[in-house]
Structure formats: structure tokens, C-alpha cells
């Protein structure tokens, strides 16, 4: 038998399922990898058309497109042009989501396009099934590109669901826990005690109850007395300037190693911060666990984690006090809610990360509002509304993600509760991917920023 004939025969033999005795539908008589046999059935049977015919609605996804939005780099960080996802249906209902991925906008857009074939033709009301279709069906689970693409589509599907059901997403999730809205915090950046006191007065006048800062330096694997003292002195200045009744968090931004983080956490414990965020890089949970064992300062992390699986080790090992998944990366509303549920069971609070565009921020508010373990919602904005906020108002038609009396008001309209101004989107055309901002140590080595 010639080689080609042998391969054909083997492929035919494999077309019979040992378990069911039924013949599988193969997309090709020749397979060069065993994976092909396993996925053939799923690929060839779109769920909206056959298997779920009797149990789904008449709504169908007809198209998915991405819209890139680039803001002037003077008002928004250049590495994160917004990637908005628009999902259209056969009944004219449209949903919006956000798949912004810092430094990899084009990759996220391409991945959304890759997932389009899985989703078009499906019933958008099957949001859990479609989430699994995108996550499990991608075979290579997780990763920020896939996570962001899923996030954008998932948010849009929830938006459609809400609009069809005529209720805000947080109501579909069982909320709101607090109808007054969702507590938030702004970012701040001060270097002197006088600046800190001025910031305190401004923050209190605005009704805002919490702020977040960063460490003053890049840090290395071990650190000098001089740099540790400078970091500690900076945080002590913040507490002194802000006074005892303003909460403040510090984003370590994974700059320290666990070794250095442990020292800093020990030193700043008396400051009673709201939390210390990303105290070390996120890959090694056991290493992080060792860094936090000498401190009672609440530890927060999670913005780089994908899907509930990505957070499970942190939760199960009781390493952290606060989880901060990003709704634009973790897997959208579906995944953020799952993480929140697992966190609640372990006494962990939620403070979702949000440092991209307005759609993801607003989507986050819906999950926040439905979580009894919610703590605070981030947004990359400051107490003083800036030019970026004016652009967001242009895009969304209202002052999106601005707090009133320390809370983000909850949307009242169906779905995510926003109407994206598509004409406004065209005023900020996509200018291409820009790399994530880099930082280098004194000796030129790549630093963690």
C-alpha cells in the first residue's frame, strides 16, 4: 500500500467513534494530527443551527466588527488605543463591548476576527455557551490576546441580552447590592507634602473617598537601603498629607521582587493603606505568598489574569485579600462574575482593574453592582476631569466613569446602558498599535513597570 493510500485508510478508520458507534463528520478525509478527529463534530455543527434549534431564541448574531479608537497621546496613554467590539443581530439589536489590550491592539482585533466564525449564526442569549465556545473551543486556553477578544465579544453579548430583556446587566446578575452606585477611586501623582495636602482638600471637596498612587522608583531583584528608604518615605508622606480619613492604595505595579515587596510591606504596615497592589510579578503564586506572609496590609492583584482559572490558585492558596481582574482581559462580564463568585466564597473582595476605555469601565460597574464582596472600582482618571473625560463624553454621550459623591452612578437603561456615538468614533480614527511603555534599570536591563 502506498503512503497516501495508507493515510486515507487511517483517516477513514478514525471517522468511526468508538464511544457512540456513529460516524463522525470529518471536514477532510486526510488529517495530519489527531486533534482533527476530536474537533470535527463541533466545527461542523454550529450550535445556532441544529443542536440547539428547539431551545434557543430567534435572535442570531449576524456580524461582529471591531472599531479602533486612538486618542491624542497627550491625553491618553499611546499604548492603548481602544478596541471596541460591535455585535449585530438579525433583529437590529446591537451590542457593544471592549477588547482593548495595552500594546497589542492589532492582535486583539485580529483575534476578535478569528472568533467571529464561532459566534456569527449563534443566539447571543446563549452567553455562557458562547463564552465556553470561545474559551474551550480555542484549544489554547487563556492568554491576554484571547482573553481580551473574548472579553469584547462577551460584553457585547451581555449588552444585547440586557437590551432584549429590557433590563440593566446588573439586574440580570442579581443586583444592585447598593442602589447608590459603586465606590470608586482615582489615580493621583504627588511628590511633595504640600502637593499631597492640596490633593487631599480637592479630593474631599469632590466627595471622593480613595486614591491610588505608585512607588517612586523602578526596583530590582534585591534593593539598597537608599531605595527602600525612599519608597517608604514617599508612602509615609502620602499618609501624612492625606490625613487619616482618606483611603489610599499603592500600586507596586509588579516592580519589586517578592524579596523587596516583603520588606516594603513590613515597613509600610503602620500606614494602614486600602491595599497594596501587584506587589510582585504575577506568574508565581507561591513566591507571592511568601512575600505577603509578614504583613497585614491588604494585598490586591489580578489585572493580568485570564479567566476564573487564572485566579483560582490565588484564591485557593489564600494569598490575597482583594482581586482585581480586568473586564477587558479576564473574559468579559461572564468571567469577571465567575471570579467574583469564587472570591466571595473565600472572603476575598473585588476591586476590578480598569485602565482602558469607557465601555469596559461601564461594563465593570454592572458586575461590581451585583457583587456583595465588591470593594472599589478603578478608573484611569484623576480628581480633576481632564481632556480625556471630554472625549469620553463625546463617545458615550454622558460623563462616563466620573464619580458623584465617591460613587459611580449605576446606568439605568437596558444592557450596559450606553449608546455609543458611532459618528464620534470616527473623529478619533485608529492609528495602529503602539508598544507598551518600557522602562529600564540604571544598567540598561529591562525593568518591570
Amino acid at each position, binding site marked *: 500500500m502506498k503512503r497516501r493510500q495508507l493515510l486515507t485508510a487511517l483517516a477513514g478508520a478514525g471517522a468511526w467513534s468508538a464511544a457512540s458507534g456513529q460516524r463522525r463528520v470529518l471536514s477532510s478525509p486526510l488529517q495530519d494530527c489527531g486533534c482533527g478527529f476530536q474537533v470535527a463534530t463541533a466545527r461542523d455543527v454550529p450550535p445556532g443551527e441544529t443542536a440547539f434549534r428547539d431551545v434557543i431564541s430567534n435572535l442570531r448574531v449576524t456580524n461582529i466588527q471591531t472599531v479602533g479608537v486612538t486618542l491624542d497621546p497627550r491625553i491618553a496613554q499611546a499604548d492603548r488605543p481602544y478596541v471596541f467590539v460591535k455585535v449585530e443581530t438579525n433583529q437590529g439589536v446591537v451590542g457593544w463591548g471592549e477588547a482593548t489590550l495595552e500594546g497589542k491592539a492589532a492582535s486583539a482585533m485580529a483575534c476578535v476576527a478569528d472568533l467571529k466564525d464561532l459566534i456569527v449564526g449563534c443566539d447571543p442569549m446563549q452567553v455562557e455557551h458562547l463564552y465556553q465556545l470561545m474559551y474551550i473551543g480555542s484549544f489554547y486556553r487563556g492568554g491576554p490576546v484571547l482573553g481580551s477578544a473574548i472579553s469584547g465579544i462577551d460584553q457585547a453579548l451581555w449588552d444585547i441580552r440586557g437590551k432584549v430583556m429590557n433590563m440593566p446587566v446588573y439586574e440580570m446578575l442579581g443586583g444592585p447590592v447598593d442602589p447608590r452606585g459603586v465606590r470608586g477611586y482615582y489615580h493621583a501623582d504627588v511628590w511633595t507634602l504640600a502637593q499631597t495636602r492640596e490633593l487631599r482638600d480637592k479630593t474631599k471637596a469632590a466627595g471622593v473617598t480613595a486614591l491610588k498612587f505608585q512607588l517612586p522608583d523602578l526596583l530590582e531583584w534585591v534593593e539598597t537601603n537608599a531605595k527602600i528608604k525612599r519608597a517608604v518615605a514617599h508612602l509615609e508622606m502620602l499618609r501624612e498629607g492625606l490625613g487619616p480619613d482618606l483611603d489610599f492604595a499603592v500600586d507596586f505595579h509588579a516592580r519589586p521582587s517578592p524579596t523587596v515587596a516583603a*520588606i516594603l510591606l513590613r515597613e509600610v504596615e503602620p500606614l494602614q493603606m486600602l491595599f497594596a497592589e501587584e506587589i510582585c510579578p504575577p506568574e508565581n503564586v507561591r513566591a507571592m505568598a511568601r512575600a505577603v506572609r509578614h504583613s497585614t496590609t491588604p494585598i490586591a492583584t489580578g489585572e493580568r489574569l485570564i479567566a476564573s482559572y487564572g485566579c483560582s490558585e490565588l484564591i485557593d492558596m489564600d494569598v490575597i485579600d482583594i482581586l482585581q481582574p480586568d473586564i477587558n482581559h479576564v473574559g468579559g462580564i461572564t468571567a469577571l462574575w465567575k471570579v467574583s463568585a469564587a472570591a466571595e466564597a473565600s472572603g476575598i473582595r473585588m476591586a476590578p482593574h480598569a485602565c482602558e476605555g469607557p465601555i469596559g469601565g461601564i461594563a465593570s460597574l454592572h458586575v461590581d453592582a451585583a457583587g456583595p464582596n465588591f470593594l472599589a472600582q478603578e478608573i484611569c482618571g484623576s480628581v480633576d476631569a481632564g481632556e480625556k473625560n471630554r472625549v469620553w463624553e463625546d463617545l458615550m454621550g454622558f460623563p462616563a466613569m466620573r464619580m458623584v459623591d465617591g460613587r459611580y452612578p449605576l446606568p439605568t437603561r437596558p444592557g450596559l446602558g450606553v449608546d455609543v456615538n458611532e459618528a464620534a468614533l470616527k473623529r478619533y480614527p485608529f492609528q495602529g498599535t503602539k508598544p507598551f511603555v518600557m522602562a529600564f534599570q540604571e544598567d*540598561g536591563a529591562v525593568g518591570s513597570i
Partner: protein
Amino acid sequence: MKPKRRKLTTFGTAFAPPAAEDHPLRIVDFHAWRLKEPDSGRRYSVVRLRAQGGATGYGEGGPSLAAEIAAARTAVMNRRATESEYVRASLAGLPALEAAVSNAMLDLASRAKEMPIYRYLGGPVRYKARLLAHLEGKTAAEARPSLERAKRQGFQLFTTAAPVRDAMIPLRAYVDQVRQHLTDMQALAGAGAEWVLDGHGAMTPGDAATLAVALEPLHPVWFDEPTGVITQDALAKIVDESVMPIGLGRAITGLDAFQGLLANGSVNVVRPDLGRNSLTKIKRVAAIAETHYVAIAPFHDGGPIGALAGIHLNAALLNAYAQQIPVPSSDRDAAMRAEITSGLRESGTKGFFALVNRPGLGFEVNEKALDAYSEERI
């Protein structure tokens, strides 16, 4: 007394015999020197390899016996200078020679390819390497000459040896004594100096834990080799009590032992000894440490060829923090070191050594100096 020959570890089935055909990198000549510094008495070995194509390479390891050198020569003759994995396996029982031979092969191969060792190892991740001065002397007064030399040579990071506890001294008094010593050294070196406290493996884990907690406010960059009891339980006494970074590893040559320390969270700075671990082997240790976000700072109490080879490794590893270099008190020792490297100084500017963009080690080894300071040429 006739030196006892150590048994070589052999991996006959894992490595094929030397390739029979001629090759420019086939090792055809092996020479070694056993060196001793005139005043400190510091000892180390230097190996020179010559390849069929004419390229030579030098590598340094810790002190070795003549019989061990002869065994190493037998093992590596006719091998290619790229076969560092063969050397790592076949000379595992002779760690000083594993380091010397493997590093000499690396120098040879890099010179043959006309590139610095750091580029051969994967390319520079930094353009300058932080230096750590290993000072001589047990007290502040004794350490002063070494410290002054190190400062003149541009060092800003120093090790100082913790006083050894006399059994009659209460623990509290001992803690005060060490704290005072560190404070004295800080005062002696002045502003801008940073310190590593060297415990020399001489403390009990309990004493080391007490000291680590007590010295936290002084922020030494790390507490090196606090105890010689390198078991998980013993080290847990220290790391469970304190946030003081702990450096360990100068006595370790097995990758599995380093992995154990890292997996158990017992170490914050891994410190393989350049005299007993080759650069390629330490690179493996660094790769393991990186996944634990742990720094690597190779220990070194040997000669200048080893120290400057360590700079190349530092340049190629993201998690390398500093390269330790012994700084002699004695002018004669310092002169010997400078002669060996043909004048390339083990010095820097503002704490860093600027990388040299020349093939191999980046300097010509002065064989006349090796001969002059050699106890024995083999």
C-alpha cells in the same frame, strides 16, 4: 602525603566519545596553573585550552590538586570546545575543574567566533555590571585598607563579615555587637555605600533568625550565608521570622540543591561560587531562580580571570544583581591580579563595571604572570 584522587562521575551512555574527525575547536592542548596570592594566600587554578584551529581560552576555578587536574585533562582532551554539557557531567565530581575547564572552553569558543563571552551566552541584557566588593578583614579596622582600595576602584556595594559569636557572649550582646559592626562599617564607607552582611555560615539558624529580625531596620541588601545548616527546617527558622533577604549557595554545586532552596522559598539571592560552578552551569541556576523572581549574585573568592568571567555572565542574565570581587588589602596581591589580566582592572565607575566589547574574556591573559605566581604548572 599523596593526594587522594577523587572518583570522576561518568556518564558513558549519555555522551558519545569524541568525534574522530578533525575540527578547529577540537581541544589539543591543556595546561594548568595552581596560583597563590602572596599575602592573602588566596588560591585558585587557571586552565588554558588550545584548539586544533589555534584558538586558546582561559578559565579559572577554585583550588585543585595536581591529580585532579590530570584527571580533567584526560577527560577533555580531543573534545570540542563547545561541549560544555559533557564537561558539566564528566567533571561533576571535580567542581573546581568543571568551572575552570568549562569557562576556558567558553573563552576559546567566543574568541574563535570573535565575540565577547556575554554575547556568546545570549547577548547583553545590560551594558554595565554592578560590582560587589568582597572585603578582607574581620573588624572595621582590619577592613579599612581593603575598603579604601575598593572605594578607589569605584565600588559602592560591599560585603562585611559579621563577628563570630563567642560562646560566652549572651545573644542580646551578640546582636548589639553585629549591629554596631554594621553601623561602624556604614560610617566608615560613608553615604552612598550599600552593604551585604556575611555570616560565613557560622551561626546557628536560631541566632541567625534573631539577628535577621534585629537588623531589618538597617536594610543590608542581603544577609549572606547566615548559617551552614542548609536544610529546609533550619532555614525556615530564618525566613519565616524575617523579611531580611537571605543569600545562600556558596557551598552548593548541585542544581537540585539550588532548586530545592528556591522551591522552598529559603533564599532571596542565590550565590553559586564561581570557583566551583561554570558559567554555563550558573546560567542554569539563574534560569531556575528567575521563575521565583530571585536574584543571582555569584560568590567569588578567587582570582581576576574568574571575576571578570563572572562579569560576562552577569551581563547576560536579567536576574543577575552583582558580581562579587575580592578586593585585596595588600598591594602585592592587587598587583598580581592586575598583571594576570594584562592591566584590565577589576574596577568600575559609580559601582558598575562597563562591559568590554572584545572577544572572549576581553583581555589577554599574561602567562608570564601566571608562571611567576604559580605554585605549580601542570
